């Protein structure tokens, strides 16, 4: 897997300098610390100090957050170079009372490779994909989209009780899955079925879980979209929000104790970062040095709550440093950016055995779920705009086609085949038997306890006595 570098002359963002890439040993360059021309430690003109963020990095040490700390610690003509020792380490002091601003002039920029039309931006650096991977990625995105569309329609027709789409977030789903290794353990929120798709979960298996049939590994225990697969290292979706985050730190701790070359990957949305579990997980993972990759899909909406009402910080990426966790913000609708960033982040997590936070900016095109009608709280034109002009699949498709690896004809064929496949899977799943009575009582504990044995026995006796009242669709 070679890396393909491009140099640039002009880049709109701050990626101006030579940046070493991908290898953990390189250090990142920062802007030189502020030094007033008079040699005094004067503040810049604004009385409220802005703090610098990491300029750009895929690897390397963290840049200093606050410009003036350098001045304090260096020896100075003033002689005020002492630092004081407190629990937690030495800290420089200042005689100027300065509050760190609650907001910065510039938001943290997001890492992007493809422009809106799917062409690589001049000067961008990314990890090159080979044809096979790129085509597989694109095909998986199409599968996900078609599966979402048809299952959603099935729910609307009353054939399914509930469904939740990932429309607009196909790039995050598939590119992340492609960038991770199959040994990495995924703790999803619920908008990541693309990872299962990538790892080999079949459409039929998705249908079995949604319809709760006896064929699914789920034994009809969970609501639709609460997929899980031990073989594919995908922990079952859990409904309470953000509970998977500290659990991911625990899984990572276990991997660390095993010495495995794998990490735990936990997903959350923007809303999930408000939960207490998010704080506990980030803090604890940093303290324990657990190899967990936190991926936040900031899609702008938590059901009807926009991010402006969810938090007042600059998104989620700035929270990383607060916990001592390295973080990056990426364009989540740019499949190549997602792929490159996750690959790099994962390498950091596994090599350095430390947590990393990735904030992927995106947009939730669909409704939150089938129980939601988002036109009630956001404008239809906003949704349409993202769907048509800012579509992650279109951008990636343009790039793949520009490389000559895909064509319109293949597109039509693929869509046709997939539609048939999904429709057929639904039809079969609808007609398949549901789990049998015994599955009501098993797996509560490792072994069936006596009280449940009694209950099952008593239930079967009741069924015998009142055969006519027993529902026909429950196999005995």
């Amino acid at each position, binding site marked *: 897997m070679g890396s393909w570098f491009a140099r640039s002359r002009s880049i709109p963002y701050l990626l101006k300098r030579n940046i070493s890439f991908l290898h953990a040993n390189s250090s990142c360059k920062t802007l030189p610390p502020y030094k007033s021309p008079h040699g005094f430690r004067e503040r810049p003109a604004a009385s409220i100090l802005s703090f610098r963020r990491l300029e750009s990095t895929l690897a390397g040490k963290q840049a200093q957050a606050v410009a003036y700390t350098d001045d304090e610690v260096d020896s100075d003509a003033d002689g005020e170079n002492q630092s004081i020792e407190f629990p937690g380490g030495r800290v420089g002091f200042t005689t100027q009372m300065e509050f760190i601003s609650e907001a910065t002039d510039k938001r943290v920029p997001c890492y992007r490779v493809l422009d809106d039309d799917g062409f690589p931006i001049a000067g961008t650096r990314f990890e090159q994909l080979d044809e096979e991977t790129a085509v597989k990625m694109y095909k998986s995105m199409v599968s996900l989209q078609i599966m979402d569309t048809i299952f959603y329609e099935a729910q609307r027709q009353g054939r399914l009780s509930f469904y939740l789409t990932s429309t607009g977030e196909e790039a995050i789903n598939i590119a992340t899955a492609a960038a991770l290794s199959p040994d990495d*353990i995924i*703790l999803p929120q619920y908008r990541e079925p693309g990872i299962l798709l990538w790892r080999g979960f079949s459409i039929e298996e998705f249908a079995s879980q949604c319809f709760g049939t006896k064929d699914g*590994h*789920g*034994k009809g*225990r*969970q609501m639709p979209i*609460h997929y*899980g*697969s*031990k073989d594919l290292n995908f*922990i*079952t979706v*859990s*409904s*309470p929000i953000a*509970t*998977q*985050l*500290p*659990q*991911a*730190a*625990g*899984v*990572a*701790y*276990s*991997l660390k*104790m095993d010495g495995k070359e794998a990490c*735990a990957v936990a997903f959350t949305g923007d809303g999930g970062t408000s939960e*207490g*579990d998010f*704080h*506990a*997980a980030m*803090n*604890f993972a940093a*303290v*324990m040095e657990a190899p967990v990759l936190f991926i936040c899909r900031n899609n702008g909406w938590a059901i009807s709550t926009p991010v402006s009402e969810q938090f007042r910080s600059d998104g989620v990426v700035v929270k990383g440093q607060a916990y001592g966790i390295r973080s990056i913000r990426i364009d989540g609708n740019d499949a190549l950016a997602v792929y490159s960033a996750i690959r790099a982040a994962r390498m950091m997590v596994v090599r350095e055995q430390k947590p990393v936070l990735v904030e992927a900016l995106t947009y939730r095109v669909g409704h939150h779920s089938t129980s939601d009608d988002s036109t009630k709280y956001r404008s239809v034109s906003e949704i349409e705009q993202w769907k048509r002009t800012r579509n992650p699949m279109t951008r990636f498709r343009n790039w793949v086609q520009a490389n000559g690896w895909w064509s319109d004809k293949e597109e039509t064929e693929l869509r046709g085949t997939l539609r048939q496949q999904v429709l057929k899977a639904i039809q079969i799943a609808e007609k398949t038997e549901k789990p049998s009575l015994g*599955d009501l009582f*098993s*797996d*509560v*504990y*490792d072994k069936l*306890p*006596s*009280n449940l044995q009694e209950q099952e026995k008593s239930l079967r006796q009741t069924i015998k006595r009142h055969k006519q009242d027993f529902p026909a669709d429950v196999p005995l």
Partner: protein
Amino acid sequence: MDKLNFVRDGGRKLPPGFRFEPTEEEIVFQYLSRKTFSHPLPALVIPEIDVFSMDPWQLAGDSDSEEDMYFFSNAHGCDNESERVTPSGVWKANGSSKKIINSSKRMPIVGIKKSLVFYMRSSTKIVATNWIMHQYCIALPQQEQNNCLVRIGEWSLCRIFMKKGGRQVEDDDANSYSASSSSPNYDPTIFNENFEQGIGAVALRAYSSSSANKMTVRDAINSALDEEMSADPKVFMMGEEVGEYQGAYKITKGLLDKYGPQRVVDTPITEAGFTGIGVGAAYHGLRPVVEFMTFNFSMQAIDHIINSAAKSNYMSAGQISVPIVFRGPNGAASGVGAQHSQCYAAWFGSCPGLKVLAPYSAEDARGLLKAAIRDPDPVVFLENELLYGESFPVSAETLDSSFCVPIGKAKIEREGKDVTIVAYSKMVGFSLQAADILAKEGINAEVINLRSIRPLDRAAINASVRKTNRLVTVEEGFPQHGVGAEICATVVEDSFEYLDAPVQRIAGADVPTPYAANIERMAFPQACASSFPL
């Protein structure tokens, strides 16, 4: 140094220069410190024996000498006030410990001297005897000054003698013994016998297989954790203060030193955080033991316990099992107020997917905790802070490292025929006291120790009620929707015809627990109404 034959012409003849009326300094710094640090001893005349395995008069063997006896013994119990039990009685500490410091040099080693008196057990009470023991231990130097725990050396040197008239027992001076004119008689044959016996006793780590030994609930839990962590490298502990602080209630004492910070993890203050982490670790195959400082704090993590730990095996159709143990003190302590005193047996007991255990004695604690750690299902282990320091007799079987108590089986603590009293945790002790009081009135009560709240041993309860025809349930928790309500329902469903009277529930008052000691007592069941003023 060879064992010299000191007996000549029937009497002991010591070589010149050797005397065995040592000062306290000599005891600590010449004999005990050398023994502790495995340096050669000046004389191999002091045998090693478990002094608590025999009654003091047996220690003298066949010798009818009335001189002081000296033994090296295990220093267990030297740093606390626990009583040491022997076959016929108990040694009790008499007064506080005394420090012995080397007068000549400022050594870091300090000796501790404990005075004990032997009480003989006779039918219903214990009677003081004239047997006195001075137990000398060594306080080892501490790393941190603010650690107020005393680390004592492995050995203690015990001087045992019979108090005679005129003999000072409470000696404050180093050299307080009136020098006896005759040299002590010493029979080496007894030495050899005692020595071998002593070796055998010491080899069983001071718990002799023949006699009943006692163990506190704290030691029971600590030893169970120690043994399970030693047997299975996947078992690890997590909680606030479990490592460096040795545990908020000293339950995890010594485990950090033994197993290291990767297996005894001190956590930041986030129940939600570390419970979630424990559940996640269990998903991936580790076997965490998560300690809550009290189960009142488990409410900050209850989503992880119920929604994740309890339900995951079912929801994942058997793919994800959660072999985790949540343990900690539950229920009322003493003067800790409403937010530290609630009993959670009923709440956790109503949740399918969990197993809920409530030990009473040391045997319960050891056996149930070992069973819980080995169990593939999530277990909530409800201890009791006030029981930690209580000692219970333990059999040799209990002390074996493979000992386990089956989950889901109650224990009949006391057989009876007139009424069944069902209780768990601390209330078992109160029920036994109540049964004693009832016995005086001619009522023969059967006391059942539930041990397991979920699964509930309905068979045992019903069998007992069918025998006695009357049932009283006792719990510390709130009455509404409590454990007693479930027991009553199960008996009414299964054994209605056998009941001669309605089932009686005794529970805590339906109020948040008050702090003031007098009304706190009123808020919980007590064994006997006449024991405190109303």
